[in-house]
């Protein structure tokens, strides 16, 4: 089939248009994160710098974590997300299930002092599919204006209804609650998962939860605890430390975080399998997990860097006159007694324990 040159000319604009579309596509990147004050901290902390330095335009989307949406895209073969902010448990599961790219060959920048990335990162932060970004804590918080008498000082006080009568807020899932209960029952942090691995240990944790069950209001989204504390709906609540920080600094709420026995987990960044902008995504992950990126986030919200070179470089809040360090979970004063959440342990038992937990709740 031959065609006249004139006819072929007709294709020129089409080809040009396609080429420019490809060029535009190459320079964008879809980043998906948890929204709210945290996503804003990322935008101010390093998205803007990344866009300026690379010319790549970031499209930011929100999600509520978990794997359901990512799995739907990968299964349907219609991936339009590139980078996702995720937590350590879904990262592990998603990596096994093949919904994330392997990125263990990523070249990560060294610390500003030249320490190679492998040594600068905390242990277990570099996995096959993810790079650690931050440390956050689930801790007990209370409203100082609503605390008659001595404030609570230990996780035991959270379960002591005689000394601290009043409602408690807890997240409606077994994760963290079983740990809090067993710690309050006198188990030292290093033995928590060992004890919980036995049937007696699980029963012991549920028995401890039984003692406050009537007084608990169960929350489901991170915004609920600060709201319940502000409304004085609860006396104390488990909460994510960044949300409490936000209420303290941005809304001047007299909230206090009791760091004793807090539970630490880490956030991570991963690339969705089959991401349309893979190269840009790899560049972005390396940029975001640099010391500078982590310190950038920590100057907007109280989530701590997971590089050794990070914490010493954290200074004041970017816009408020607040020293950030004392608000970070990894600050030495806050780190006297804490538990590191065991992701593998939970990935194996979450289904079973959630069923038990729901059954226990309904009784």
């Amino acid at each position: 089939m031959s065609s006249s040159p004139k006819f072929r000319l007709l294709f020129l604009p089409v080809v040009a248009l396609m080429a420019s579309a490809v060029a535009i596509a190459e320079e964008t990147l879809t980043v998906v994160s948890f929204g709210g004050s945290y996503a804003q901290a990322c935008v101010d902390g390093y998205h803007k710098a990344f866009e300026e330095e690379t010319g790549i335009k970031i499209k930011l989307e929100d999600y509520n974590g978990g794997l359901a949406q990512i799995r739907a895209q990968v299964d349907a073969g219609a991936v339009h997300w590139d980078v996702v902010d995720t937590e350590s448990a879904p990262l592990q599961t998603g990596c096994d299930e093949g919904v994330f790219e392997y990125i263990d060959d990523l070249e990560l920048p060294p610390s500003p002092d030249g320490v190679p990335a492998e040594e600068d990162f905390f242990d277990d932060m570099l996995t096959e599919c993810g790079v650690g970004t931050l440390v956050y804590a689930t801790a007990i918080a209370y409203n100082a204006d609503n605390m008659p008498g001595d404030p609570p000082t230990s996780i035991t006080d959270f379960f002591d209804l005689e000394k601290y009568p009043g409602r408690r807020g807890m997240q409606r899932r077994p994760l963290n609650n079983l740990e809090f209960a067993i710690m309050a029952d006198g188990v030292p942090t290093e033995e928590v998962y060992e004890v919980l691995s036995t049937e007696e240990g699980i029963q012991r944790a549920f028995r401890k939860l039984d003692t406050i069950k009537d007084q608990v209001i169960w929350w489901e989204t991170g915004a609920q605890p600060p709201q319940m504390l502000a409304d004085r709906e609860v006396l104390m609540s488990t909460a994510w430390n960044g949300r409490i920080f936000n209420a303290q600094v941005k809304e001047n709420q007299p909230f206090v975080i009791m760091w004793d026995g807090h539970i630490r987990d880490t956030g991570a960044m991963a690339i969705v399998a089959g991401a349309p902008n893979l190269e840009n995504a790899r560049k972005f992950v390396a940029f975001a997990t640099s010391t500078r990126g982590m310190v950038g986030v920590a100057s907007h919200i109280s989530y701590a860097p997971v590089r050794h070179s990070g914490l010493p470089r954290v200074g004041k809040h970017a816009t408020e006159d607040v020293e950030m360090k004392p608000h970070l979970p990894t600050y030495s004063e806050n780190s006297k007694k804490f538990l590191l959440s065991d992701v593998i342990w939970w990935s194996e038992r979450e289904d079973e324990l959630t069923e038990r937990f729901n059954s226990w709740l309904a009784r």
Partner: protein
Amino acid sequence: MFGRNNETNAIAKRAVPIGLALPLVAFVSITFLIPLGSMVLQSFHDPEVAETLPNTLRLLQDWDDTEIPNAEVFESLADELNAALEARTIGKVATRVNRIASGTRSVFAKTARRLQRMDATDVKAAMIEIDDRWTDTSLWQAIRTAGYRFTSRHYLQSVDLKRAPDGPVQQVSEDQRIYNSLYLRTFYVALTVTLLCFLVGYPIAYAIASVGESLAKILLIVVLIPFWTSLLVRTTSWLVLLQNQGVINDILVWLGLVGDESRLALVHNMTGTLIAMTHVLLPFMILPMYAVMRSIPPAYMRAAASLGANPIQSFIRVYFPQSLPGVSAGCMLVFILSLGYYITPALVGGTKGQLISNMIAYHIQNSLNWGLAAAISVILLVIVFACYFIFDRFVGLDKLKLG
């Protein structure tokens, strides 16, 4: 010749309405029947493990359950896990086996990865060295169970039953039972909400049907405005009204009816669920009752009065029986809608006010156990159909009237 023509005419006459209905049929089958079918299929068809480990499962059929399988089984599993790791389907296998034998999830990916890195000649010994859970016969039983393409597991689990490894069906241990009590609770809530809606709605419908036209319009709008408002807005407004430091408690304390220390727990429990659901579903009760009541001629009541009945008698013996078709339509609507209610209990129900739909949502969104969610949904659907047939049997569908 003529007869044939008539026949084609008749066919053509029938074809027109069928043709007109085709878009609807297509729409209903695409948006309802196909998803429904695939959901029902998911509840008993789970081929993931069978497709990933075909050879191992075939070998396990000859295994006698009492001791650790032989080296051939180990080698076959090692090969197939390796392929699954490459194809990145290993997580799906691990998730399914873990649902049967909790605490085994990590053993699959861990074993496959380590095996890739070592050059083992004795695969069986190597696997046992990597993780001694491979010596546990219950893990192998779980793999075999997960390997059945067709399974009754989800249905058993959704009525708090399970199949023991050696065959018989038994109840799950007491601290894991949940679904049966939730069906009962859902049923109880649906009945209570229906009753409350009837008690609250009947007088309102009666009032709207019997007052003058202009006042009736205003009353109707009062009923309809909440109906047009977003469900989420209405539900969260109840949260504001009912919570511990909320409007109603504040007023009660201010009036001195309850002490500041003993504020009523009106929300995050069953009370909250009942109040909010009754309010949300009220229009579904009022509108059909109003439509039927409007068609009852007022002359009947006057006739009853002129024949000597007092107002109560004439209401009970003349008016109420005529309004029954509307009452049954309203009750039916509210009852069936309540059975599937989800957002309102999730927001104001706390833990004591959760219904079976909340568990379906949990398994769809969080645990990603769609098979179990599908099985619970099918059971709920069967309950709805059962109610429908009981209604048809004892009341009669011809008695239903929406206006």
